[in-house]
């Protein structure tokens, strides 16, 4: 067996970093915490890369098909002979790919934070939290059964909560961390119920067995779960949709996306790690993990995934065009790109060449991780310099921050889908897949692609052009080398990641896909993207009145988009007005008056009774003697006259 157990070290090293830094960091490693964390993660990354090499080039392929390999497994909770919760390590193409992405991006963020977070009082704590997050995320992708993934899923949620609320002196950060936690927690409720539904009918929690039982046509488990129905929808669809609800919560799909923009209150490198490359794609990963069940047994649930993804992609792109906080623009852009991945899964089929969407989704996940974390880190460098998140405080930075400027430009070109940058390749696969499957989704995707190019270059020009270069005097330079190196490395990857042969590695059924996108197909999306860029250039390259005028002419639509289509207000209305008044208040009244009242009554009765009988306990020995005499007399009478 060529996959030794040292794979377990990949998540365990960050865990060790978390424990060491969390317990002793503030006392002993105040300054060296960053170095320790970064070195630990470097080790993890190297192991991940060697694992990937081993899997893709040496041992993963059997008869031309990539295998699912269970490296380790031990039983944790045995419920019945067939059902147990195990802890294990499962290796397959998406796991290996995610391992590389997560550990590498995390390493970049660790490195970047060395400069970005320098001088923070809770520097060591920050690195401890980063270690915890990386551990949970790596554990999540390695999970071999659905309950284990749920455990890590919650751990990811907790560490994300801790990192978003890292600046806990700021009320907005506290509110944002609570919001993120509650919204994702609410979604996880669905996930848990989904797990229960699926495992109840399939009698297993293990991914491999579960997928096999629920996809084999005519298997008794599949028949049972299809026969069960609730509200006219079959048990399988319910289970998958509830699991998808959990994924949608983590991946910020509409309408559970409201936490993501607010989560930008966390430190910017954290946003790069959590809200760009890793945690938010956990939902995509989850759907991909269960993809055979979706694709082979329940196309209806897959359709829901597709439409949710497509709508979120478009919806977020529109909002992104109007935001002025650069991190929020990036947040909505992330949401939009994840929508891409989701609907790419949705349009995909399982077998062979039809699995193009699945492959495209994974490919996009791979490339997106690099260019989006690059964008966030670049934004972090900018914010580090100007101490503001608002576009109006920036502009003309291209001379002051050449490296940031170039890398940011590369990332923008990549996300806009301009060849030969990496985003182009993955996006083409997705568009191709949707074109073959669903024309409506294809149209939405095209439109979104144009919008993406537009808002990304609006962002780019607002930061680096738009104003004369000498606006920002007296600020310190671009930042330390520890901040520049990640930018350079990620920029290189954003250029070349598109040439990684994901098509022959990561596919739904393990077989390589050989179809290539014809060059003629690429003309339309690329020209749309270029049009978006040109429009942005016209509007934002130099400061002018035109954007203002257009905004006024757009009127209500612009306002609605800049207020994020009032989704937050709808949530507030539902929770505060409806839930609070109709359920919360009556429940509180019931609790206060009926439940508490009953308890108070009991307490009062007891108190009165004891007040009544406490006189017996007078402390006077002769009273006790009298009671004693009475008791004896009673006993004697009972024994003599009643005990015959």
């Amino acid at each position, binding site marked *: 067996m060529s996959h030794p157990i040292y794979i377990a070290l990949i998540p365990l090293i960050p865990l060790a970093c978390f424990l060491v830094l969390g317990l002793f960091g503030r006392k002993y490693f105040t300054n060296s915490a960053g170095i320790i964390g970064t070195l630990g993660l470097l080790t993890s990354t190297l192991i991940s890369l060697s694992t990937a090499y081993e899997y893709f080039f040496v041992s993963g392929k059997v008869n031309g098909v990539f295998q699912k390999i269970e490296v380790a497994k031990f039983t944790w909770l045995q419920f019945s002979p067939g059902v147990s919760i195990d802890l294990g390590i499962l290796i397959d193409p998406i796991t290996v790919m995610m391992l590389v992405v997560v550990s590498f991006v995390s390493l970049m963020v660790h490195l970047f934070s060395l400069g970005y977070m320098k001088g923070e009082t809770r520097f060591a704590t920050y690195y401890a939290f980063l270690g915890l997050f990386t551990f949970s995320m790596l554990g999540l992708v390695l999970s071999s059964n659905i309950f284990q993934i749920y455990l890590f899923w919650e751990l990811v949620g907790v560490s994300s909560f801790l990192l978003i609320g890292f600046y806990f002196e700021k009320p907005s950060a506290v509110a944002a961390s609570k919001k993120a936690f509650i919204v994702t927690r609410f979604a996880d409720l669905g996930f848990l119920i989904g797990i229960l539904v699926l495992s109840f009918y399939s009698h297993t929690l293990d991914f491999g067995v579960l997928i096999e039982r629920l996809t084999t046509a005519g298997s008794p488990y599949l028949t049972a779960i299809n026969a069960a129905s609730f509200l006219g929808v079959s048990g399988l669809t319910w289970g998958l949709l509830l699991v998808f609800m959990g994924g949608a919560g983590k991946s910020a799909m509409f309408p559970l996306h409201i936490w993501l923009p607010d989560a930008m209150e966390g430190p910017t490198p954290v946003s790069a790690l959590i809200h760009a490359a890793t945690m938010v794609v956990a939902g995509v990963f989850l759907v991909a993990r269960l993809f055979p069940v979706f694709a082979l047994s329940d196309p209806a649930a897959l359709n829901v995934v597709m439409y949710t993804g497509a709508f979120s992609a478009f919806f977020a792109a529109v909002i992104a065009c109007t935001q002025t906080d650069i991190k929020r623009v990036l947040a909505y852009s992330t949401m939009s790109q994840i929508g891409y991945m989701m609907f790419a899964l949705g349009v995909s089929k399982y077998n062979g060449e039809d699995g193009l969407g699945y492959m495209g989704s994974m490919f996009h996940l791979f490339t997106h991780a690099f260019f989006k974390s690059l964008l966030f880190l670049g934004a972090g460098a900018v914010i580090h310099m100007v101490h503001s998140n608002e576009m109006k405080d920036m502009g003309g930075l291209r001379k002051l921050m050449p490296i940031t400027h170039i890398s940011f430009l590369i990332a923008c070109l990549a996300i806009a889908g301009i060849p030969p940058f990496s985003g182009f390749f993955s996006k083409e696969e997705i568009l191709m897949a949707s074109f073959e499957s669903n024309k409506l989704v294809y149209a939405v995707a095209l439109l979104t692609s144009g919008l993406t190019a537009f808002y990304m270059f609006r962002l780019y020009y607002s930061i680096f052009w738009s104003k004369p270069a000498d606006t920002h005097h007296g600020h310190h330079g671009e930042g330390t080398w520890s901040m520049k190196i990640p930018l350079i490395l990620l920029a290189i990857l954003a250029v070349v990641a598109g040439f990684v042969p994901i098509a022959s590695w990561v596919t739904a059924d393990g077989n390589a896909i050989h179809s290539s996108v014809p060059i003629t197909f690429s003309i339309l999306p690329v020209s749309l993207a270029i049009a978006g860029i040109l429009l942005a250039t016209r509007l934002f390259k130099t400061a002018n009145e035109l954007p203002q005028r257009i905004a006024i002419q757009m009127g209500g639509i612009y306002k609605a988009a800049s207020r994020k289509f009032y989704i937050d207000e709808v949530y507030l209305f539902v929770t505060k007005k409806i839930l609070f008044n109709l359920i919360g208040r009556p429940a509180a009244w019931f609790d206060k008056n009926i439940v508490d009242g009953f308890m108070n009554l009991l307490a009062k009765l007891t108190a009165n009774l004891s007040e009544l009988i406490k006189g017996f306990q007078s402390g006077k020995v002769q009273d006790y003697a009298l009671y004693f005499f*009475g008791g004896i007399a009673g006993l004697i009478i009972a024994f003599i006259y009643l005990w015959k």
Partner: protein
Amino acid sequence: MSAASIIFYLIATFILGTGVLAVTTRKIFRASIWLLFSLIGIAALYFWMQLEFLAAVQIIVYVGGIVVLIIFSIFLTIKSGDEMPKPIFIRSIFAALAVLFGTGFVVRLISLYTFKPNSTTVFNLNVNQIGTQMLDTKNYGYLLPFELISMLLLAAMIGCIVIAMKSKDKDATTFQNSIQ
């Protein structure tokens, strides 16, 4: 009515009368003296029953020991000339009720029951016999209870010393403070 029965009734009246006085008089020293008389009356009862040995033990232990001990502690703790406080009225009512009920109940039980002697031999107490049987290890010997009683007496003696021993002043004051 023979002389013996007259003597019995006299003794009984004496015992009960002095007993009642012992528990009702308000002067504590008098109470102890009435108790003394009552105990002597019981010794007389033993004489009347021709149990001279027991009567002697009664006089030596009770009259010579316990009553002296009681008088001794009276002198240690109370001004013996003062009248004691009256008993609490409600409690004496309850006590009287309990006593009347108990007496009536037991008297009724006794008078309803017919006692039959186990054998017809005449009871004849021999001190020699008591001593032999007390230290006998064979049938009906009382050696083991005798040893146990001697251990008990030793333990009681040590216990009395420990309890009544005056603790060091510091401890005593703190104890008193805690009691107030």
